[in-house]
């Protein structure tokens, strides 16, 4: 399977935060969700993918091309949506289109107006007067109108109300019908991903914890519930993190077979949602 985004051994150091030796591959033709807590390094990673930041070490390739030689060719093929509004605030969508459109060789005016109609966006209203949801739709319309093969989005659903969010997710799914598209988007709202993602990349403290298909995540992780007496130094080893309560414990495991062998029928093993996985992985870092 072809990798559209390929980060190899990428490091970036800031004051008080760093990304260390990250390897991240994004597969062509799928939706990859990029999750992690606030400050885990999602935006930094995306900025390196967009060449807004240059890594201190390592290699960033998109479509198999590097930014040093193929900056324009790469960006021609990417549509981007950022968390905040990056468009000139006081300007209306028509003028913004007049700036963004001509930058792309494959800009399609008819397609842009199709999205404007579909999203019911006003062309002559200043973008700063748009609601958060409308701003996101405007970014999306601009990102989709040049037949981009890869759509990179940084927290597109942050600050959207649930109805807007659902609408957005449906739209993303529609976009994939094209077959030739790849979508990479970061979020900290894991339920977004349960619904649409094919792959999940999870970042924590600047480190990629895993990058697996959503089925693999479901198969590899499980939530285990049982009474606290079952826990001792040996049995605890099967868990990534344990939450103890007077009524019993709840723990995350990535070794379901071992749990079954150790505890048998004395515990309840449930499917762990992405939120459970993220919560427990964030909660206690017990890298054995």
């Amino acid at each position: 399977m072809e990798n559209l985004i390929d980060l190899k051994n990428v490091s970036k150091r800031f004051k008080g935060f760093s990304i260390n030796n990250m390897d991240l591959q994004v597969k062509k033709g799928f939706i990859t969700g990029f999750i992690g807590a606030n400050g885990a390094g999602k935006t930094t990673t995306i900025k390196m993918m967009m060449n807004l930041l240059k890594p201190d070490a390592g290699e960033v390739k998109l479509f198999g091309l590097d930014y040093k030689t193929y900056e324009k060719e790469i960006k021609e093929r990417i549509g981007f949506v950022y968390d905040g509004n990056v468009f000139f605030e006081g300007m209306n969508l028509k003028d913004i289109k007049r700036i963004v459109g001509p930058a792309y060789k494959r800009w399609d005016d008819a397609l842009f107006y199709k999205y404007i109609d579909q999203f019911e966006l006003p062309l002559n209203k200043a973008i700063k007067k748009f609601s958060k949801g409308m701003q996101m739709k405007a970014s999306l319309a601009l990102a989709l109108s040049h037949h981009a093969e890869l759509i990179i989005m940084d927290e597109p659903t942050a600050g959207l109300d649930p109805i807007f969010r659902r609408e957005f997710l449906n739209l993303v799914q529609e976009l994939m019908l094209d077959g030739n598209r790849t979508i990479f988007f970061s979020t900290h709202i894991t339920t977004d991903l349960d619904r649409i993602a094919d792959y999940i990349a999870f970042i924590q403290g600047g480190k990629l914890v895993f990058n697996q298909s959503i089925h693999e995540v479901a198969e590899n992780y499980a939530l285990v519930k049982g009474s606290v007496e079952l826990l001792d130094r040996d049995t605890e080893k099967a868990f990534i993190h344990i939450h103890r309560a007077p009524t019993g414990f709840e723990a995350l495991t990535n070794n379901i077979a071992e749990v079954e062998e150790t505890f048998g029928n004395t515990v309840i093993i449930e499917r762990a949602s992405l939120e459970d996985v993220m919560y427990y992985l964030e909660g206690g870092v017990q890298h054995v």
Partner: protein
Amino acid sequence: MFNLMRRDLIIQKWQLLVFIPFILVFILTNSHPILTFLVSSFYIPFNAYYYDEKAETNILLNSLPYTRKEIIASRYLSAIVCMVLSIVLVSLFLFVFGKNFTLTHIAIGSGLFLLFASFAFPLFYLLKQGHIFTIVLISFLVSVAVIPSVVDYLMDYMPMITNFIASLSTITLYTGLALGVAILYALSWGISTIVYQRKAF
């Protein structure tokens, strides 16, 4: 590249409406033609920097299929284009209102603009956001106030320089100065490109 330059006009369409009254104020208050040429040349490029210094603008431009080299080049080229347009416009108004001006005024005005731009542009990319506009404005006002008296001082107390300048033919003097300014502008362009390529957004 042309699109990058064109964006100034789209962004500043309202400011452009004020441009003509702005020039007229200088002309009708009988300001020196050099000053009028100089100030009107500044109008568009320096307004543009007000937008360019915003982080969002840089994120947007750098996410579009442009290289950082092109973004800087568009800035330096459009400054020259704006200067030429302003000179044409100001000359026209000066002519219409029957004010006297000479080619020397145009040459000095545009020379000073390029000189000042050569120093100001790299500073825009070097300095921290938010302070740039104030710093440039203040340094411009200070230099306008100080430079004439510095020149006077040099003229009065350093007859050697005066003699040297006087000994040159007008053509040599002007060619020399034009060449000097051109070299400085090119140097400034190079420095801005290096600074901008190292920036993180």
